[in-house]
């Protein structure tokens, strides 16, 4: 009974992570959830990422790299907080086809956590 009560209390917190505006990809760790969305990608074109982080960290960075090619992007994205744990990263570009890892770096209370998500680009 106590266990069910605990789950019921936790459930609203989990549901609170939202990114209004349509379907979003989800990346999770034991402590954080990220919902992100971006327009259809094309090789060699700049794009932006809208995302929400729960719980909201003190600072966020976004980057990407190609593990198989051992290189990152040729651009350093900027992240602008939109309020309420939501953000917009601009200036990203995948300049080659293949598998990329989109990396979210979250910093809170002196600790850094990295959450990565694979994106394949034809």
């Amino acid at each position, binding site marked *: 009974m106590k266990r069910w009560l605990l789950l019921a209390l936790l459930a609203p917190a989990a549901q609170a992570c939202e990114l209004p505006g349509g379907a979003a990809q989800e990346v999770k760790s034991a402590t954080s959830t990220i919902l992100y969305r971006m327009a259809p990608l094309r090789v060699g074109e*700049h794009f932006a990422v809208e995302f929400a982080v729960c719980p909201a960290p003190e600072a966020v960075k976004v980057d990407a790299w190609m593990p198989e090619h051992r290189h990152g992007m*040729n*651009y350093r994205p900027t992240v602008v907080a939109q309020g309420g744990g939501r953000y917009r990263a*601009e*200036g990203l*570009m995948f*300049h*080659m086809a293949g598998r990329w890892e989109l990396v979210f770096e979250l910093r809170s209370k002196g600790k850094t956590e990295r959450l990565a998500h694979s994106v394949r680009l034809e």
Partner: protein
Amino acid sequence: MRRGLLFLLLAAAQAAHAFTEAQTRAVASHGPWPPAFKADPSNRVSGNRQAIDLGERLFFERRLSANGAFPCSRCHLPERNWTDGEARARGLALTDRNTPSLANVRLQRWFGWGGAHDSLWSQGIRPILDAKEMGSSAAQVAKLMREDPDLACRHRKVFGTPSPDDEQLLVDVAKALAAFQETLVSGRTAFDEFRDALVKGDKAGIAKYPESAKRGLGIFLGKGSCSTCHVGPAFTNGEFHDTGIPFFIERGRVDPGRHEGIKKLLSSKFNLLGPYNDDEKHATATGTRHVLLEHRNFGEFRTPSLRNLALTAPYMHNGRLATLRDVVNHYSTISPDRLHSDGEAILKPLKLSQQETQDLLAFLESLQDGGGNYRRKAFAGDCGRDAAFSRPQ
């Protein structure tokens, strides 16, 4: 028996090349061609007919150079797909780099082998001022634009009352030159016909494309991984790579490529973050605002378009490779030891057979258009007939 075996081998090599669904999507991504025109928001006269005429007039204008002998067309020859056939360009002196083609130049994001410029118009300023190329100055260009009746008239029609500032007139000249260069688009090729036929499922159209070129296209998309960087309708990702071409120019001198290009870009008052960008919101400056300078950029050079490349020999940033076959052989035998230890792990020797080399060449040659789609306009100084426009103030 031997004859039978030989026949089987030949038959296997020449069997009709079929494309998978994924390959068909990849082929489709290299078109359609030509792409629709999109005006450059950073250049308020982009797409303007009178600016295009002024730009064409200026492109062949010798008096833009210090010695009155070197127009832009000295190195960018229309009959050579807007390049010069030399390993390294020679203006007032020998330069360090191969003359890039201007065909389809409007589709680029970065300009020059090192990408030191972020707009076609800012790129146009560099050779005018470069001591090794045209060796001119803003003052000389402005004087010409104010004093030549026909040029002054055309300038006024496009840009209005001329600025008293020489540098602003230089930028106007560069923007008119860019408007003209935006019109230089290569024509349709055998590949484009095949690509469209494949997308439509037009069997007769597909059959017209030579089997050797189809096999070469298969290598380009597959074993060769050429399409990793040579993407899209223009066959370039517009970015920079170290392809194992030595960057030593001569004893004690190197070409830093993209590394130097980014430094020059960010320190240039003509970049898209600066006051001459006509796009007030500076949305065109996204790349410049976010570009990242890293050690690995040393020795990286811009991925060139492959359209009409059979007309642009010699190849690479310093013209080191004389023929298209040399380029294919370079990638077939490339030594990973030549590449940066902190660079990308993309290139490895392709180890192409003679047949595969021939097929890849057949595909690359199918990216050539019929040629001759540019006709130089004759300007008879007709703008100057309007006295109200022709006299400098």
